């Protein structure tokens, strides 16, 4: 799951997979803005076959926080 998520983020934000850390977030990745965030959420939903609500969308703004939501949803 970690690897898949890193791949999505790497493609979308033009960063290397091994540069993505737990604390990588909308604050410190240049390409990650509120509009690209929409594509990120949609891509994650599609990859892991889940759907998120507005609160979760707003919460998933760092690698660690996304992982947390995914784990909560039972994604392995």
């Amino acid at each position, binding site marked *: 799951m970690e690897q898949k998520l890193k791949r*999505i983020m790497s*493609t*979308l934000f*033009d960063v290397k997979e091994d540069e993505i850390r737990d604390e990588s977030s909308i604050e410190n990745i240049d390409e990650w803005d*509120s*509009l*690209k965030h*929409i*594509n990120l959420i*949609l*891509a994650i939903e*599609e*990859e892991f076959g889940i759907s998120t*609500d*507005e609160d979760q*969308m*707003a919460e998933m703004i760092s690698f660690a926080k996304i992982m947390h939501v995914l784990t909560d949803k039972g994604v392995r």
Partner: protein
Amino acid sequence: MSQLNRKVIESLIKEKEFELAYIKLNESIKPHSSLNNFLFAEKIYRVLVEELAFRRFRIAILRTITVEPMLPFIKVMCYANKINPELYLGGYNIIDQGILDQGSKLYAFKPDALIIFWRAEEVCPKLMDSYLELSSNEVVMVKESVVAKIDKLISAFRTNSEGKIIVHNFELPQFPVFGIVDSQHKRSQKGLFEELNNLLIETTNKYVDVYVLDYEHLVSRYGKRNWFDERLWFTAKAPLSIVAMQALANEYTKYFKAMLGMTKKCIVLDLDNTLWGGILGEEGIQGIKIGQASPGNAFTEFQKELLKLYHKGFVLAINSKNDEEAVMEVFDKHPDMVLRKKHFASMKINWTNKAQNMKDIAEELNIGLDTFVFLDDSPVERELIKQQLPEVHCVALPNNAHLYPKILRELPDFERLSFTEEDLRRGEMYKTQIKRKKLEKSSTSLEDFYSSLEMVAIVRVNDSFEVSRLADMTQKTNQFNLTTRRYSKSDISRFITSRNYQVYSLRLIDKFGDNGVVGSIIVKQDNDIWELYGFWLSCRVMGRTVETAFLSYICEKGLKDNIKSILGKYVPSKRNSPVKDLYKEHGFRLVKKDKGITSWKLDRKKTSIKCPRWIAIREG
């Protein structure tokens, strides 16, 4: 796209097999593939754009909503169609400002196309939200103000830019106010928007190069429920679902392709499991599947769809490994065949490899392979064509024939911005072309052949009824195109009304029928000098001395108008080498040569061009 496919594409790029990597990538992303694929593809395409020849296209988008999440889809759909897009996005819900201000960033961007994506919710919120509070007078006022606004915007853009316009019409309300009786109610809300959409068309039709994207129709094709994403709307003012973003990006690309003159011309078809089910060689004429019952009915439907394309002016051809005699029996005798021999301009039914056949068809019809679409169920045959003739667009037909008609209908390759009379008769014209070829073979000399054609050329000047055909010809003509210039309808209209230009057209009629308007010369006048600003001749009539007749007419006309000399220019392109010596062959003198561009001059008093005796010229 699987991880494996990604690896294959990445390694092809490493090996510098860009063309092949491009084809593989295209296969993996369409149609309606996942967002992750699109995002991956966008990244790879950006590498390929540097290596392959894509057409540049500058697209400005003005919008009333958030469309940013859709941009990757637009880019990918463009790349997949060999277009390298440059995008300009106007501010959120700002439409008027950019268009009305001459000094705006929009005009500095110099768009080739402007997309206006607006919605009734923002343009005329009153008609959506407070419709029942309005008196019928107020409704009329709002409606009229929307139409006036549209008119003002288009007119302003037309004054400041030569770019083409794609303007969305309005989606009809998913839940109109009067519910189940809305369409019957005298104040039907849905009816109001239908009326508004009609007025939009009426307004835009006053201008050239303005196209109304039938957004309402597109949305209904996919379903309003699937189109709208409430969650994205309420969190980010981005109302489109993933499905919607892909579909709309695909729809835009159809316009871009047509605007760039990248529409395909010829559909090349396999036979077994393509035009009919089963294998003729094994199952025989009674065994092949076609007709009213399943699974044959899917093939019947597919043929009907192809027939529509034939009637719209696309050329059909066959490229099949089969026994010719057995195939002819099917075309002649099978009661359920929709397509018959007469619908095909060329048939290659043999055991030669299909790449060679494809080249032969291109030569016979005298059109480029890059205007070909190839439909074959066999992945092996498709792979061969992809490797040997990458310019041909190979369309994969899946194992289940019931998808065939849909695949054909969804292809962006056959979209055009106009359908002229010539287009609607083109299939038939190519067929008579073959008859002419036969006559050519049976004639003892070329002169006999020309004479037996009984050719009559009708020349017209500045005829505004021919604007779309002439624009179309400049867009589509690659071989006989002296200056490689291409013009839109508005350009041609401008030439016609300008005092310094004259637009000549030539229609050719022969004993096999009317070939339609097949030639055009745009003359630019500078005192007593004429410059042949552009010269186009359809490839269908090349090699019949029509160009000589046309030039002789222009020369004569010049003499009457006291013109001293006529200038011509040849600008080389990838495809126009057949006309590189045209001016020389007609007595023009070389006056300048610069990087392959040659300039020619004809002194009217010294030289004249004789019209071939087998072509009669009339002024129309």
